[in-house]
């Protein structure tokens, strides 16, 4: 028989407000096995933990139940407390009487009644707990960073700086990401390339960092400390080790009409290309969709002009297999498609552009060499209308736009507006906004400068319709302060498109078994306290894949993710989860049902000798669970026809005891 102690937490008034904690601790005192029961204001505090430790010693407790917040919050805390008092940490059960009781029920009698039942279930479970010892597994001291934007770059640099090898997988031919496409950055107006490209060079030169560009993650297996990853290196038809990046091929290639994605299709590149001058790695890539040689077998100009002999039309996709201890997701974002917002005439006029296109139009390396010219006729625009929140803050997210605020648009629009007025004072600039959101260091000051010093017209209201007519864009909008409908003949309309996670994130999340929210942003292990870890151990989050972020936030999150990775890789061994499957060999008949459902291949079979009652021996085939590989899902326990397989910590008998306690 166990000797159980029950500890009911008030959580200040969080629990005690709706649950009569005294009544709960008294009721649970009467449960079988309970020898001690008390309540206290904050069980998780030092004093509260001391109460638990003292009681364990004084009453020789063999198990404890803490009625408190969610086990996702403080189970680990109380397990440590128990261990400190010499009790096996797995003899602790939590009754969740805060998130799942006091916070969702209104009146005290109901809350108290339910809290007692939840407490009884936990007591019933502890009665059947057994001490567990976690196994250990080694840690592969190498990290994988998926995505080579500023988030991935910073994470990789920080990890490498601590002495661990890092691989970056980037699906584009170069690292750099969205930041490489930006012109200036708010609120300091630093040139994006000037602060990003040195970091890209650092990555290229760092001995600890390998870059797999033009590559994608194909498969992820394993678990924290021991991931097995397959990376597909797509054929770029150029030998990376030989190519010098001289660019001769990109000048001679006869296929000139390929939309240049780096400039968002506003100009053309060749079929063999280097995305931009500062690309890392600076090697050429052949676009198989446009290359005449690859499509028809006739051409071969690039091969002829390449003095290094780097062109290889026969190159194949290559699969690289590597082991990693930790994985960082840094897959970033994209502006959403403007297809569903045709009231702004995006597809009907070249002069309606997105903000990212505007960045390219003002960038010295962009299609207009930094001169602000309208795409349709390359004239200088004299009236520019910026529209905020295009697709952000929408209600019906599935069909049109996103429910969330994209966070960065207010500031980059202020930046764009300010830069236009600074460079071209003859240009009138209007910004239509719903709210201007500037909660960052020096952000509001920046926005006010745009209005006060640079004379940008901020108008509260939305644009309803943009009508191209002649060479003008007729903008119809509302001015809510003036209570007027305003009509502006604009030369250029710039849409602040909402941002969304990159499309590659969803399949990647499935591979990593990392969870995502309904918008396909990765969810963090805890929204406040573990913001850079995914709920899947060993998978970390960096940058906009977790939510909209500006550059400073991305960089700080990248550093934080790196420090978590370093903390993990610094360990030689990881303590596993002891709540794993274990077969009762006496009952196992070796039928292989469990092996078939195990998603990890953790179950194998061995022939074992059994002593029979008549003193003969019998060889039988029985299941065996590899404790380092089993993750403890329990699929096998249900598949087992003879009931031989059970899950430690969540044994059938324990769950049934809980059911019984609840259904009394």
């Amino acid at each position: 028989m166990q000797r159980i102690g029950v500890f009911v937490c008030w959580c200040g008034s969080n629990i005690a407000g709706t649950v009569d904690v005294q009544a709960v601790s008294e009721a649970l005192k009467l449960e079988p096995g309970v020898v001690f029961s008390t309540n206290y204001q904050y069980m998780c505090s030092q004093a509260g933990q001391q109460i638990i430790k003292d009681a364990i010693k004084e009453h020789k407790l063999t198990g404890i139940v803490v009625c408190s917040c969610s086990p996702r919050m403080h189970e680990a805390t109380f397990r440590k407390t128990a261990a400190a008092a010499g009790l096996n940490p797995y003899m602790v059960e939590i009754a969740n009487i805060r998130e799942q009781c006091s916070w969702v029920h209104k009146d005290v009698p109901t809350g108290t009644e339910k809290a007692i039942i939840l407490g009884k279930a936990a007591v019933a479970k502890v009665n059947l707990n057994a001490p567990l010892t976690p196994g250990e597994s080694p840690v592969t001291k190498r990290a994988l960073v998926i995505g080579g934007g500023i988030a991935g770059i910073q994470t990789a640099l920080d990890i490498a700086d601590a002495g661990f090898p890092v691989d970056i997988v980037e699906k584009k031919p170069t690292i750099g990401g969205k930041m490489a496409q930006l012109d200036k950055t708010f609120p300091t107006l630093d040139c994006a390339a000037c602060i990003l490209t040195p970091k890209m060079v650092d990555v290229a030169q760092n001995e600890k960092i390998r870059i797999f560009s033009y590559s994608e993650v194909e498969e992820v297996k394993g678990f924290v400390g021991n991931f097995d990853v397959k990376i597909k290196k797509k054929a770029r038809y150029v030998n990376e080790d030989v190519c010098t990046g001289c660019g001769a091929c990109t000048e001679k290639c006869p296929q000139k009409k390929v939309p240049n994605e780096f400039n968002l299709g506003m100009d053309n590149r060749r079929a063999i290309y280097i995305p931009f001058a500062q690309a890392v790695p600076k090697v050429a890539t052949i676009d198989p969709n446009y290359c005449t040689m690859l499509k028809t077998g006739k051409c071969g100009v690039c091969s002829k002009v390449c003095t290094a002999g780097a062109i290889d039309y026969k190159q194949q996709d290559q699969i690289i297999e590597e082991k990693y201890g930790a994985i960082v997701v840094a897959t970033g974002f994209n502006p959403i498609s403007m297809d569903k917002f045709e009231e702004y005439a995006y597809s009907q006029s070249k002069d309606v552009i997105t903000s990212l296109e505007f960045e390219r139009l003002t960038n010295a390396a962009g299609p207009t060499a930094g001169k602000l010219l309208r795409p349709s006729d390359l004239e200088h625009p004299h009236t520019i209308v910026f529209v905020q929140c295009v697709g952000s803050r929408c209600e019906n997210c599935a069909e049109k736009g996103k429910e969330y605020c994209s966070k960065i648009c207010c500031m980059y629009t202020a930046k764009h507006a300010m830069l236009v007025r600074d460079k071209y004072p003859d240009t009138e600039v209007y910004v239509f906004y719903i709210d201007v959101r500037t909660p960052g260091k020096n952000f509001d000051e920046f926005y006010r400068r745009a209005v006060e010093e640079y004379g940008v017209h901020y108008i509260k209201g939305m644009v309803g319709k943009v009508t191209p007519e002649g060479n003008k864009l007729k903008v119809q909008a509302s001015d809510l302060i003036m209570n007027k409908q305003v009509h502006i003949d604009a030369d250029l309309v710039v849409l602040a498109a909402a941002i969304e996670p990159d499309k590659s994130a969803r399949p990647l999340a499935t591979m990593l078994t990392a969870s995502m929210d309904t918008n396909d942003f990765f969810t963090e292990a805890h929204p406040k306290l573990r913001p850079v870890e995914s709920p899947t151990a060993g998978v970390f989050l960096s940058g906009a894949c977790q939510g909209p972020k500006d550059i400073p936030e991305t960089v700080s999150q990248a550093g934080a993710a790196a420090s978590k990775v370093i903390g993990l890789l610094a360990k030689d061994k990881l303590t596993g989860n002891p709540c794993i499957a274990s077969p009762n060999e006496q009952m196992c008949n070796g039928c292989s049902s469990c092996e078939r459902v195990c998603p990890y291949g953790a179950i194998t079979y061995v022939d074992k000798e059994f002593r029979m009652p008549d003193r003969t021996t019998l060889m039988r085939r029985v299941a065996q669970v590899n404790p380092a590989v089993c993750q403890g899902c329990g699929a096998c326990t249900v598949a087992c026809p003879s009931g031989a397989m059970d899950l430690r910590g969540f044994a059938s008998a324990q769950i049934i005891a809980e059911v019984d306690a609840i259904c009394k």
Partner: protein
Amino acid sequence: MQVNEKKPLIVAFCCNWCSYAGADLAGNNRLAYPADVKIIRVPCSCRVNPMFILRAFQRGADGVIICGCHPGDCHYTSGNYFTRRRMAMLFSMLDYLGIEKERTRVEWVSAAEGAKFAATMNDFAEKVAALGENKRLEDLRCKR
């Protein structure tokens, strides 16, 4: 319609990674649902042995709901697919035994769907309450 004053008894099995976290989120956001719902935490919805559900009905539960990660999002890759198939089988058998379909349910609730968790529980509890007490499988020997 309902004359029975007895509160229904509902057992909810929630997977640790998605639905239990979803329930916690419902709590964080103070989204109320009936106290009739009592949650049992399991590592994965595929840990729920049909036996547990039968046991609950035997012991007088009026409804049993199993919540897991959305298909494709299982923390253990494929556990919820097992759940889906197993429960389809079990529920059709329960239906045959006279346990109304409304008393059993499988629902996918992610860690981000606190509102969905609360809404699901409200709806489920309402439907179960409308059916009244479940006597069909109740084992009187289990009564105290």
